[in-house]
């Protein structure tokens, strides 16, 4: 069979690519070997968050967040869209200074932000422990249930003639992909969106799996209003230590709480590391002692596709004509999926992208 574009993987990134490519008029074929949105997309928190580690990260997250917001009025209920905002929690004066910095940074870029002092923070989230110094509130951040978002984006693409194949790509040729069934799909454009599995098809790609644990509670409506993240997260999460945990707590529209987060390199098994999960939960209790009595109904793990510079790989694969990369989104792929889809579609369709694509081009890494 033939297609104008083949997307490998129907996670949130592949689904967003299919949506965007079908919008510019291409006939898209999506190949997914497991369940739609069943990879990292089913493991992630679905926090749609602006970040400012680098100018490039801000540009991508900010752009993508706007795309999410534009879509939100059309979203079906199962996407659990919740514009609940983020509170970046400062535990000491040093972190309070970081709050001030971030505040200035975002204000300068037109993002609505607010500084809360200790009393305002206690008022906003009464279950937080006393003695915290304050927080930065980003009201425009939100939460989505990513597996259903992926399915929805795909369904939109299918309305624009995209097709979905339940099969596995075993190799990528020149302008074609080969499937387990022996079939091949011929296409001038092949988009590799297989997340942390990208190395299986392209061993040289600079992507490493970075494992994370999450736990979800029973329903406790009203316990938490906004997503809470410790500012120390910035120190721990984006460093490249082999192991780290941080307080990251999310309210779901179901009344459940999603408790994160952890990062581990060089671990490949999917099982729960109970002592490590315990460490992550102790960090959460440290910030919110009232969590102690709440019941966890399930814990799981997932793999982020991490790159050396913490920015994704979006654009042509160096030296492989017709092959495009859309992976390496680490802990932000749900947020940045929509922007990724647009950047790829703009490049293929020869349109001018809304943000400069250079920082994300795979060619920035030596081959």
């Amino acid at each position, binding site marked *: 069979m033939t297609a104008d574009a083949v997307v490998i993987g129907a996670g949130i990134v592949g689904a967003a690519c299919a949506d965007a490519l079908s919008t510019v008029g291409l006939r898209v074929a999506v190949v997914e070997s497991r369940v739609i949105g069943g990879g990292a997309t089913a493991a992630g928190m679905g926090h749609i968050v602006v970040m400012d580690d680098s100018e490039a990260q801000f540009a991508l997250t900010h752009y993508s967040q706007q795309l999410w917001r534009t879509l939100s009025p059309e979203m079906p209920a199962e996407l659990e869209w919740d514009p609940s905002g983020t509170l970046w929690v400062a535990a000491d004066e040093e972190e309070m200074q970081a709050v001030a910095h971030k505040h200035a940074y975002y204000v300068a870029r037109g993002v609505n932000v607010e500084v809360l002092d200790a009393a305002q923070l206690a008022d906003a989230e009464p279950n937080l422990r006393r003695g915290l110094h304050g927080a930065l509130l980003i009201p425009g951040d939100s939460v989505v249930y990513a597996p259903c978002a992926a399915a929805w984006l795909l369904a939109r693409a299918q309305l624009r003639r995209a097709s979905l194949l339940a099969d596995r790509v075993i190799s990528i040729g020149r302008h074609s992909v080969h499937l387990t069934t022996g079939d091949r799909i011929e296409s001038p454009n092949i988009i590799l969106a297989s997340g942390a599995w990208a190395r299986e098809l392209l061993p040289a790609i600079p992507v490493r799996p970075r494992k994370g644990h999450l736990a979800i509670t*029973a*329903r406790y409506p009203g316990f938490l209003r906004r997503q809470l993240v410790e500012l120390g997260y910035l120190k721990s999460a984006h460093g490249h230590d082999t192991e780290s945990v941080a307080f990251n707590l999310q309210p779901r529209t*179901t009344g459940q709480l999603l408790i994160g987060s952890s990062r581990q390199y060089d671990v490949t098994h999917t099982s729960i590391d109970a002592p490590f999960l315990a460490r992550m939960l102790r960090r959460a209790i440290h910030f919110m002692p009232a969590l102690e*009595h709440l*019941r966890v109904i399930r814990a799981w793990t997932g793999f982020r596709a991490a790159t050396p510079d913490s920015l994704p790989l979006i654009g042509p694969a160096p030296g492989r004509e017709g092959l495009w990369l859309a992976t390496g989104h680490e802990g932000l792929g749900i947020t940045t999926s929509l922007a990724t889809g647009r950047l790829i579609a703009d490049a293929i369709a020869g349109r001018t992208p809304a943000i400069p694509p250079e920082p994300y081009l795979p060619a920035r890494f030596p081959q």
Partner: protein
Amino acid sequence: MIRLRVNGKPVSLPEGSVVAAAIALSGLDATRSSVRGEPRGPLCGMGICFECRATIDGQPHQRTCQIPVRQGMEVSTDAG
């Protein structure tokens, strides 16, 4: 006899009984309301279905079929 209260109503029943029996004795058929608001009562009687959940002494999501009645317990079926 063990005395306890279900939604504020006093009930008493023999030692060794479970909280689910006390809820029934108080005149209620449902122990909880489902996520879409349907009334639900115990199903499995052995701690696996979670249909008999109620709040006991302020702790929500307790499986009342597994928990023996204790003197002075406060049981509430109001939370989901």
